[in-house]
């Protein structure tokens, strides 16, 4: 990759996330060449060697576009988020983790201590000495630091101002390509940027809109896990078959990838436009299709969703109105 002072600068950073988003960017095939041709990639730890101090040395606002993926879990994530915010004109929360916490956000259901406990001390962990990490440690070479964990994971916009959001776990390659095209056009003066705060690279409805499955007025007397439904009707709406499909509440843009191949949507594209709390939408939706009047009967049907928070907030817990579990806060309180 050649450095070229005249080309706009591009950065990408990977905070608390799985790395899938980076792969997704590389997965846009020949489009990646457009990126190289049109941008000067100044910072992208997964693809090139770069030092934080180099970024710190840059002039504020000198990077045109930063795709920031991952949530803010520790001090280092937070430092980089703020640093890149200062240096960047267009900061994009890229992928579900940066947008709304995603799977790492589910850790907000536990206090930090418990997370550390689980990581370092479960049956499957080989840690005979019961060793736990420390934030600083003296070695002959000097004092070593590892970043402190925050009590909860926060999506990017809870830490810094975000210009655009691009959900997906990861975002679909065709959507990434479209966004890259758009930015290039903007750079060339051929297009306008959408208004700040927009969600880009998505559709304007929900997954059901793109889902080819047939649907009727819904009324459900039992919720089941998909593996317990045999056989799954390949053409009928999954929700009508009692499988809690998150498609009705999830923003379109993925071409209903999961229901298309026979699996229920689990919601990685996040809430539809204007929705304040994704989980609330699904609670309403699932409850609405239940066909029962007696509390006992309703409870029995609800037993078919054994992990409600996991079901309705798999990707959105950190971005939800309540953001976390009480216990995660309580660590702080007591």
């Amino acid at each position: 990759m050649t450095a070229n002072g005249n080309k706009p600068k591009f950065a990408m950073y990977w905070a608390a996330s799985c790395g899938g988003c980076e792969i997704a960017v590389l997965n846009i095939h020949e489009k990646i060449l457009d990126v190289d041709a049109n941008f000067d990639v100044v910072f992208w730890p997964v693809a090139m060697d770069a030092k934080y101090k180099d970024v710190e040395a840059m002039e504020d606002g000198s990077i045109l576009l930063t795709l920031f993926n991952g949530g803010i879990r520790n001090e280092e994530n937070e430092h980089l988020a703020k640093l890149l915010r200062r240096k960047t004109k267009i900061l994009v929360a890229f992928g579900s983790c940066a947008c709304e916490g995603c799977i790492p956000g589910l850790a907000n259901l536990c206090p930090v201590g418990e997370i550390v406990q689980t990581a370092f001390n479960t049956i499957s962990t080989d840690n005979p000495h019961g060793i736990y990490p420390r934030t600083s440690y003296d070695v002959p070479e000097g004092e070593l630091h590892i970043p402190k964990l925050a009590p909860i994971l926060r999506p990017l916009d809870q830490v810094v101002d975000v210009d655009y959001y691009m959900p997906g776990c990861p975002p679909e390659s065709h959507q990434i390509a479209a966004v890259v095209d758009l930015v290039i056009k903007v750079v060339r003066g051929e297009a306008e940027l959408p208004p700040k705060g927009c969600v880009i690279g998505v559709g304007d409805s929900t997954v059901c809109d793109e889902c080819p499955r047939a649907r009727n007025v819904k009324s459900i007397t039992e919720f089941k896990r998909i593996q317990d439904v045999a056989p799954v009707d390949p053409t009928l709406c999954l929700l009508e078959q009692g499988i809690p499909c998150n498609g009705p509440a999830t923003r379109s843009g993925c071409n209903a990838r999961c229901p298309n191949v026979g699996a229920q949507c689990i919601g990685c594209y996040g809430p539809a436009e204007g929705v304040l709390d994704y989980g609330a939408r699904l609670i309403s939706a699932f409850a609405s299709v239940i066909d029962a009047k007696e509390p006992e009967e309703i409870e029995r049907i609800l037993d078919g969703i054994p992990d409600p928070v996991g079901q309705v907030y798999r990707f959105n817990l950190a971005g939800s109105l309540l953001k976390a579990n009480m216990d995660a806060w309580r660590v702080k309180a007591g």
Partner: protein
Amino acid sequence: MTERIGVYVCHCGTNIAGVVDVAEVSRWAGEHLAGQGVVVSRDYKFMCSSLGQELIQKDIKELGLTRVVVAACSPHLHEKTFRNACASADLNPYLCELVSIREQDSWVHTDKSAATDKAKAIISGGVARVAHHEALEPLRVPIHPATLIVGGGIAGIQAALEIADAGYRVYLVEREPSIGGHMAQFDKTFPTLDCSACILTPKMVDAGNHPNITLLTWSEVVKVDGYVGNFAVTINKKARYVNEELCTGCGICWEKCPWKVTDEVFEAGLGKRKVIYVPFPQAVPKYPVIDAENCAYFLKGTCKACEKFCPTDAIDFTQKDEQITVEVGNIILATGYDLFDVRRIPQYGYGRLPNVYTSLEFERLSNAAGPTGGNIVLRDGKTVPKTVGIVHCVGSRDQNYNPYCSVICCMQSLKFAHLVHERTGAEVYNFYIDMRTPFKDYEEFYQRLLAEGTHFVRGKVAEITDFARTPEEEGRMIIQVEDTLIGKQRRIPVDMVILSAGLEPRQDAKEVGKLFGLACGTAGWFIERHPKLDPVATMTEGIFIAGCAQGPKDIPASVAQGAGAAARVLGKIQQKEISLEPVRASINEQQCSGCRICNGLCPFNAILFHEDRMVSEVNPALCQGCGTCVAACPAGAISGTGFSNEQILSQIEGLLLVNVNGKTTEAVPA
């Protein structure tokens, strides 16, 4: 903040100001809510007075207010008042919000500082909410001038005649072969002892002949679509097996029909009727029906006597049920009542002791056109009773059965006592708990009975038995009761017992209610819009109730309600169109994914699905604005005017601005 909001805090005399520091509240709102757009905040003695309203109007004009918050009484009382005040100052009425600091605050709290803080919170909620109000126009829908009346008892007949006389079409649907209802079964009516048939028959005939009334007897409503002004009602006309065009009502068929069955409906089981029959001679319409369940032809394939003798070939065994649909703008339900089933009180012996009668049986027994020709005799058909016991409150005012008072039983029991006395000279005992004779000339009737020498025993009958303990009890029924005025248990031997059974909602009232979108109260009667001020309207626009369907009552009250409901309907028809509260749901097609989750949620079937475009749509005329679908749409595609997410979410924020200790809060982890 672009909105310019005015806040008006009412003293309501001392009703509010006695507990809430209104001056402080008003000052606080002006100061602390300025950031939310409040440009003026005032308190005033009576906001709803014309001076109070003028205050608002002046501010709208002079200060250019775009939103108004009035902190006073419940919106159910004065929302309209303040909306109108705004409207006359050219501010869209829906940009006004009335918050209740009286019913919800000053009247229910004693701690003045807590009440003042709560008033601040409530106002803060209202201010936050009003900023998101939209200018709305009431919905206007045309009203179809025809009316459907269900139930051809006296209440339904009265309503039908009133509307028809005013020149509008009425469809009168009656389930039985003839109209007339319960009143047709009676001999005399209290308190004047008019002959029931003499006063009812002319009305029935009028209804039968009226050019504006379409009588649909032997029919039932099966489906109701639409909404106020525009109902489409499907009616099932049961097969009569008699061609109404040809039949002249000559009566040869029922004369010739060789089969008799017990008449459980009109004769209350006391008499018999033919299989092809009219329930009573004055029936309207005059055409008979064939009771197919008992007809020899339908059961065994032979007979057809009626067909053979009919001079006009009107009998038609091939008739089928027929469904017709009519369009109407308003509906009146006058479905009446059922009699309490006295078998549910086994200790009163009905069904076991032959000479225990229900009130309706007695009506037939005493009716000159009844099975005994009006002779009051025991079941053996000849013995005239020497002593008769009449039991009040059977199944009424009793937690084990119906807790309510059935209203008519006392008067009806007095009527019975009089008839028995007059026709048999028997000794009559009336057993009552309280004597209730509340209307015009009723008490006078009671006094007449006292003068006649009727025995009145104050006490609820414990049991009626045929087991004699003493020789004078032999062969008779004994009524065991405490005479509470004397303070002694008494056993009174009688020959005949009449149980004044209470009135109950129709067995199928719940289902019928559902058909029309009406709810029944705990006792099962249809719920009126307001028990005192709107007894014939219901919560569903365009649907009215009259007569005993609304609750137990006597004939004068049933007639008054029938006429009242008719007046309400005529009022609507005259308006030609009706304006509805614009609280409605609507779907943003762009956002709707066609998931169809909302489709099954609307009880008024207001949501339709367009298969072609795969989107749902709300019919604003059907939607009643409950908001259930708004809360349910997972895509956030449905919004509801008047109660939008923005309005409610900001109201929550506003309410939480001041916490219970009066401190402005900022919730943070401790």
